[in-house]
């Protein structure tokens, strides 16, 4: 769990986001201020259409805000061009999606290695070792060479978690990572995320509709109609 003195790894200043133009222009985020500190495990909750995914995309540098600034590791990212942004994103942020989105043509190990190879521009033996270590960490040491299509939903999501950690990120952004899993597998995957958070000090922001899982986070950020209406530590932690 992070304390208030831990350094900020992700900071949003007055972030707003518009979609459409002219009369059809719709503002989906309104002046969002948010700071994620190292080692934090935060839940982002809110009803459908509240702007959670848009906010997550902006935090993940997949989308740019219409207004406001996004800092990752104290670096303002608005001045970076698309390729610089892609490289910076790859080096500082990890993603876990609702559907694992593994590349089906590749093995579990290759899926984990790809972000490293994309960053360096080539594959090498050290990446292989690193990938194996990450798959061991998520309990899939025996599935290194299984194709993504040969894995169960839970296993595939574990590989996706290992992939998100490949570049040793400051923050992992998880968009309903258990939304497509049964309750037991959901609990296992969530436990894995928490374990990685505690052992490696990586900050997590998890979007979830599951209040049961949200209650297991250190902090709960509630987004309604594009505004943060509450940002509180979990009750048990107060």
């Amino acid at each position, binding site marked *: 769990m992070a304390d208030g003195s831990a350094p900020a790894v992700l900071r949003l200043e007055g972030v707003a986001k518009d979609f459409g133009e002219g009369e059809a222009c719709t503002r989906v985020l309104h002046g969002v201020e948010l700071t994620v500190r190292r080692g934090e495990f935060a839940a982002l909750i809110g009803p459908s259409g509240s702007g959670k995914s848009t906010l997550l995309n902006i935090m993940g540098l*997949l989308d740019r805000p219409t207004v406001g600034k996004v800092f990752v590791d104290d670096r303002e990212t608005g001045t970076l061009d698309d390729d610089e942004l892609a490289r910076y994103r790859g080096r500082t942020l990890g993603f876990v999606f609702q559907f694992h989105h593994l590349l089906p043509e590749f093995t579990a190990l290759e899926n984990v290695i790809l972000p490293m190879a994309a960053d360096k521009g080539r594959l090498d033996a050290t990446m292989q070792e690193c990938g194996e270590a990450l798959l061991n960490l998520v309990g899939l040491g025996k599935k290194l060479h299984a194709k993504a299509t040969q894995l169960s939903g839970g296993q595939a999501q574990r590989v996706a978690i290992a992939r998100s950690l490949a570049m040793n990120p400051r923050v992992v952004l998880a968009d309903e990572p258990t939304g497509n899993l049964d309750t037991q597998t959901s609990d296992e995957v969530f436990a894995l995320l928490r374990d990685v958070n505690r052992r490696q000090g990586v900050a997590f922001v998890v979007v979830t509709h599951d209040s049961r899982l949200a209650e297991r986070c250190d902090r709960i950020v509630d987004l309604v109609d594009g505004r943060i209406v509450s940002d509180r530590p979990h009750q048990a932690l107060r």
Partner: protein
Amino acid sequence: MPFEWFVAIRYLREGRAQTALILGGTTVGVAVLVFLTALISGLQRSLVAQTLSSQAHILVKAPERLARPLPLPAGSAAADRVEKTPDRIRSIEQWQQVLDSISRMPGVTAASPTAAGAAFASRGEASKSVAVRGVDDETYGRVIEIGPKMKAGRFKLDGTSAIIGSVLADELGVGVGDKVRLTTPEGRGDVFLVAGVFDLGNRDVNERWVLVPLRSAQTMLDLPGGATSIDVKVADVFAAERIAQEIERRHGLAADSWMKVNEQLLVALRSQSASSYMIQALVVVAVALGIASVLGVSVIQKSREIGILKATGATTRRIERIFLIEGAIVGAVGSVFGGGLGTGFALAFANLARGPTGEPIFPVDLTPGLFAAASIIAVATGTAAAWFPANRAARLDPAVVIRYG
């Protein structure tokens, strides 16, 4: 291994049906390219070789004499038509120096003097109108390869020996060792011993040509020490016209290249080449469209994966390169398979029909240059065709495709 190559090769390997489809299309395209080019260039080479078997690449002659009307006194009338001067057989002035100069010109491989004129060849009561060509067998043999085309005897001229065409030999009923009399219209003549019979593959030449030693022809045609023409051979047959023009400019003589003499043949060859290029261009376009459409579908199918790659740090350039490399690989592999298939077709076609001498009726030209060109075209086409899908992939918005596919 570079990241882009790793992903591109895997995409091609795993996309079995799609890869087989574009590879099949490229293979067939390259095969058509190789087959058509080999066949057309083989046919053209054979046609040109056949045309030049009895013809010098350039024929240098004395310039045509022009009538020069005398200046008329003022007030007198003159006819408005100037008659052409009747041209008799004339020697090229200073032909030895001209021959020496032409022989040393770049691109010229051989040059030989000829003293040519009309005569009658007779044996017994049979008499035929012929073209007497007095040549130096050594240099003339370098300009027109008669040696390998001898049906009987040898291509060797000395004293009063003569080499005659196969049709003339049949018509006069003579063979090697027989004698024929050659008489010019002016009544000069001599008896010659037939030393050989040639077949240059041209009926008119085989019926009319009688080759005799240069000195004998000079005497018979009343051209003491003269030569009516210089026959020239050049290294590049299609440079003949340019060299002929250079000879005209340097020596003020008339120089006719085979290209000028056979203008209709050249037009036909050019038309044949143009239609072949058109077919090949259409094949290349069809292959390019095939590659572009299949890779385009692949980009649509892989949109989400491309989004994930971008989300995890792959830049737009890396994504673009993955698909360009896929196109290049398809072109390269297709050129290998297509080259083999095209070669197989070409050889099978060449073996399909053969002439009486065993030579293929449809000769094919399979050269390393052809395969190199086909490979370059295939790789360039594959890469160019992949540009549009690659560009589309690179422009995909990861946030959108990850969410909506």
